[in-house]
């Protein structure tokens, strides 16, 4: 249903990397289809695999349509390469630091890893200096800790490394 922005849609140009991404989605759909069919095959209409197979068929068809459409679209001119438009340095940095944060949370515990994450990311993104970054981090973390741990009694990851 193209009611929302028919005009934009008519002259839509593809963004950098879009064709590759759509292709990847199509390959992903192929994989999902394979796994969906290997759940129970076409044994019966009420088999565990019925709805996954149905969903997989929809995935395949829709990703194929999108792939063809994207291939036909003119390449965008207004923006630069994939790296500058889609994954600029700030995005890569933040994705990396978030992933690092998640991966150390079990070893160093919630408090230490969150403090490190907040401090480094606020330092880089907010650009207001070392002292302010650390103060803001401590404050925010204290509030989150009190709300989750003390008031709502959520168990947060505890450091396993010093135990």
């Amino acid at each position, binding site marked *: 249903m193209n009611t929302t922005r028919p005009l934009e849609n008519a002259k839509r140009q593809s963004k950098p990397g879009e064709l590759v991404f759509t292709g990847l989605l199509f390959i992903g759909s192929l994989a999902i289809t394979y796994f969906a069919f290997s759940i129970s095959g076409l044994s019966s209409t009420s088999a565990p695999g019925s709805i996954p197979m149905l969903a997989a068929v929809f995935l395949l068809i829709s990703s194929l349509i999108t792939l063809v459409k994207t291939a036909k679209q003119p390449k965008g001119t207004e923006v630069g390469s994939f790296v500058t438009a889609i994954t600029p340095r700030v995005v890569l940095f933040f994705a990396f630091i978030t992933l690092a944060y998640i991966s150390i949370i079990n070893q160093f515990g919630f408090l230490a890893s969150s403090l490190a994450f907040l401090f480094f990311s606020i330092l880089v993104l907010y650009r207001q200096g070392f002292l302010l970054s650390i*103060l803001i981090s401590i*404050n925010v973390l*204290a509030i989150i800790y009190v709300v989750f741990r003390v008031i709502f009694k959520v168990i947060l990851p505890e450091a396993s490394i010093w135990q």
Partner: protein
Amino acid sequence: MKNDPMSKASQIFWLMGTVISISAALFVHFTADAPTKGYPARNIQGIIMWGAGGATDTMSRAVTPYVEPLLKKEVILINRSGGAGAISTKYVHNKKSDGYTLLYGAENPQLHGVLGLSDIDYREFYAVNVLARGISVIVSHPDRPWRNLKDLMEDVKARPSEIKMGSTGPGGLPYVVGAMLGSQGEFEVTPVPFDGDGPAITALLGGHVDFLPSGFTATAEHIRSGRLIALAVVNDEEIALLPGVPPITQDYPAFSKFLPWGPFYGVFVNKDTPEAVKRRLTDAFYTGASDPKFQKFVDDFGAIPMNVSGEEADKFLDKWQSVTTWLLHDAGATKSAPEQFGIPRP
């Protein structure tokens, strides 16, 4: 606050103030929750293997408040359902055996091996307390013609696979009771699986299935109000809460070899937990579960209190596992044979 034209100095001042007040708050918190000597030195985590609002959940949350004052620490309960309890079981099994992670579970892990879900069952755990076991009843809708189990069984024989039985999936209570009925002669019904007792009862109330083997708890009030009728109690004698409903052994005496059978609820820790910790927990749960108020809750809940631990509990658990797995195996409902897991035939 951060957008106002504030000088950096005042921002820092403000932030420092907050830090001090929050540190004070944290100090108060930590002194209140400070570690103490001996077990338990800190709060304990309780993992419930079924979701919020289920029978296991209710049983766990009912007993815990009686135990906490005895342990002098909090037991923080978390629901971790999934994999019919296999996820919680493995989670607790992988935790340190220090008594700080308890498993609140039902009967399911005893079947995980033969159903191909997981290799871990209660033989890997120490039973701190098996709190209670439930009784099952076979219920039907009053609009259906059957008034006792015999009526139903004969109708099933006359119309194979036309009668719909509410079920809760492989290894669930209806499934096992169905297999028991199947061992008594021809019993071909269409089992319609639901997500649990509740949804299955709702479907029975609406007439979307014809009968349902179910836990007594969930159906008790519906039977009392006449919205459902009980065809038989899966027990070897009549129970006080269901006067006039015949025990299943009345028409099918051979059933007694399976009995007593029903779902059960218990608290477990890893087998290699230090003895002192086991004893502390066992004592606390024994005293807690002996509280008359909890015993009354168990009665109201339509379950039979057990309050056993250690070897006595193991005997019960082993028998349950042996009866049920072999029954399912003989009915052709298992993925691997019970002897592969060293479960003896009853």
